[in-house]
């Protein structure tokens, strides 16, 4: 057991930091506000293009697809540094983490050639069409239907809470081709296809984050189907295993906590009355960090993380909450024009327990699989 980074890992982190220092514009912090605004989305494409040219977009991908087969630590160090900086990759972090690798596993040669190279070049944005008005945590009850007509699929329905949909080029869409959980399929849906209407939902998270996506007799060729009909659950499970730890939110939370403390110090307000709250939050951030590292370490040793991944995720939710509460109580001016980055963090932190699956689902998994408590009756 060793809690230190090896020289190669340190060097890689330094390279990523140097890249960020050289490529983030002076007004980046204002730009980071609004996680999928037009300006941020446009910037993410040029930024990711630069990352790709520097070999820093998909280092953990296979060489065939522009990577160098780097280990999971490399991918996670990259993710930490990006998220800590305010995630200048925008929605493209999803391509890098799970959409690309999922297509590598389940896509046809043609689908792979069509989509993966453009992801590796950093020039395309995807959104994930999972949630629906009647299907959130209970994803299996989704209603969007894909009906086969000859060699084509005709898709109708509604998606909601779709992040990045406003600027996405392609949607990783779940739609029903049959009954039950095994009747759900994945489609790769170009967003310029006729019949798609995207409506932004004004939100407290910031500009451009969540959307409704209406699908009105959207026609797709048969080769837009990923894998086989009814294979969505298996594909989603794979995607989830690639994204188990999720966003390293603790990295930005820790940075923002330190920033809030420095703000207090400058104002002569970092006194003993604030220490307990700051220390509690700092410890929670560190716990979330180590939890997440333990999952990456398991992956590095070729193991599949079990319910510990849910625990890591929930530890991160706790840390985000404590940092947010600290900022609200101790540095409230940051939410009123005082600090664009603290504001952006606060807006994003609120979704920590909601995005990518509700925290309560993680608690259920922890109770059943980690603690081995009896299951709830259904």
């Amino acid at each position, binding site marked *: 057991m060793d*809690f230190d980074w090896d020289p190669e890992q340190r060097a890689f982190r330094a390279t990523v930091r140097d890249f960020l220092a050289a490529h983030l514009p002076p007004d980046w912090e204002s730009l980071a506000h609004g996680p999928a605004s037009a300006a941020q989305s446009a910037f993410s494409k040029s930024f990711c293009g630069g990352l790709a040219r520097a070999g820093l977009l998909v280092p953990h991908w296979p060489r065939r697809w522009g990577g160098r087969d780097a280990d999971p630590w490399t991918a996670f160090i990259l993710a930490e540094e990006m998220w800590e900086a305010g995630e200048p990759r925008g929605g493209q972090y999803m391509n890098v983490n799970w959409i690309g690798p999922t297509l590598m596993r389940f896509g046809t040669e043609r689908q792979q050639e069509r989509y993966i190279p453009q992801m590796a070049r950093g020039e395309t944005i995807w959104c994930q069409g999972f949630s629906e008005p009647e299907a959130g945590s209970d994803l299996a009850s989704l209603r969007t239907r894909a009906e086969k007509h000859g060699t084509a699929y005709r898709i109708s329905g509604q998606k909601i809470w779709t992040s990045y949909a406003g600027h996405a080029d392609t949607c990783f869409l779940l739609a029903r081709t049959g009954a039950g959980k095994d009747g759900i399929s994945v489609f790769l849906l170009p967003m310029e296809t006729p019949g798609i209407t995207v409506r932004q939902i004004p939100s407290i998270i910031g500009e451009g984050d969540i959307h409704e996506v209406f699908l009105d007799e959207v026609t797709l060729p048969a080769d837009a189907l990923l894998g086989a009909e009814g294979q969505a659950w298996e594909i989603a499970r794979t995607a989830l295993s690639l994204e188990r730890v999720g966003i390293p939110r603790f990295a930005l939370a820790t940075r923002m906590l330190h920033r809030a403390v420095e703000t207090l110090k400058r104002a002569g307000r970092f006194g003993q009355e604030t220490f307990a709250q*700051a220390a509690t939050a700092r410890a929670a951030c560190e716990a979330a960090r180590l939890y997440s590292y333990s999952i990456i370490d398991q992956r590095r*040793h070729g193991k599949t993380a079990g319910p510990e991944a849910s625990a890591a995720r929930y530890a991160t939710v706790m840390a985000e909450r404590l940092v947010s509460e600290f900022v609200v109580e101790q540095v409230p001016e940051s939410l009123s024009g005082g600090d664009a980055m603290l504001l952006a963090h606060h807006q994003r932190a609120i979704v920590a327990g909601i995005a990518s699956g509700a925290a309560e689902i993680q608690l259920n998994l922890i109770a059943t699989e980690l603690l081995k*408590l*009896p299951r709830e009756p259904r």
Partner: protein
Amino acid sequence: MDFELTSDQEALLSAIDKLAQRFETKPTEFHGFALVSPELERELEEGQYYDVAQIPELGPLAAALAIERLARLPCTAEIALSMLLRPQLPGDWPRPFGLVENGRPGRFVASARTIVVIDGDSVSVAQPAAGEVEAVDSLLAYPMGRMKVGVELTRLSEADAGTARKWLRIALAAETSGLLQAALACAVEHLTLRKQFGRPLGAFQALRHRMAECAVLAGGVRWLALKAAGTADEADAALAAMHAQESATRIIYDVHQMLAAMGMTLEHPLHLWTYRLKALLSELGGRGGQSLAVARHCFGASAPGQPSEATH
């Protein structure tokens, strides 16, 4: 960064686990608080387990793993202070150790050959003579004792005092981690067996979620304790103790709530762990004390009389 145990660490942990299994039995006749096992202490002495932190291939991290495992036992012995603090003190001090803070009764004081004495900012070490210490009855589940006034103290330098506080924090976190796991296991067992409204209590979401949150907290305590033992860093030690006391405060309450009246009996062993945890909650200034340490070592808050340092 590698979270796998080395073969040496695994071998030690396996030996400790084998030893611990012999002391695993929950007492049925013991209706007190501090269940001390001189046999366990003797076995640890004979196996030279108290010296593992000084063995280069094992080090303090292996000692922390051992402390955590042994803390899960229903019985207790003076382990953490001897394993982690003793090797870090200047000079050679005989075990067992005790700890006295600000004149209050402390753990293992009545039987200690060496007592660490914290008084405000100073840290001293003492070797009390017979009659200079006495046992006190306590609700806390360690043998508690008081040191009489007038015992000769050897005051540690400021640097050594800092080192002692750091290792006390790490020892506290490692022991807390084991105690939390044992307390949680008690609650899980009860929630699995006890049925109400026709189903096990553990099948009710209101209880499942509380237990799951506790498990996440306890897991965090473990990682922070192990990291601090591995890095010997001041900031890591402060964070580990902070998270340990913060999490234990919540978990003690929740596990007793889960066991309801059963957890109030002396027949059930839950209190053997929770009332040891309660003793640890107050040490080193409690959460307020850890907050000061975190503020100083993580946020660069000034020590008394010094300018603050910028961080991050």
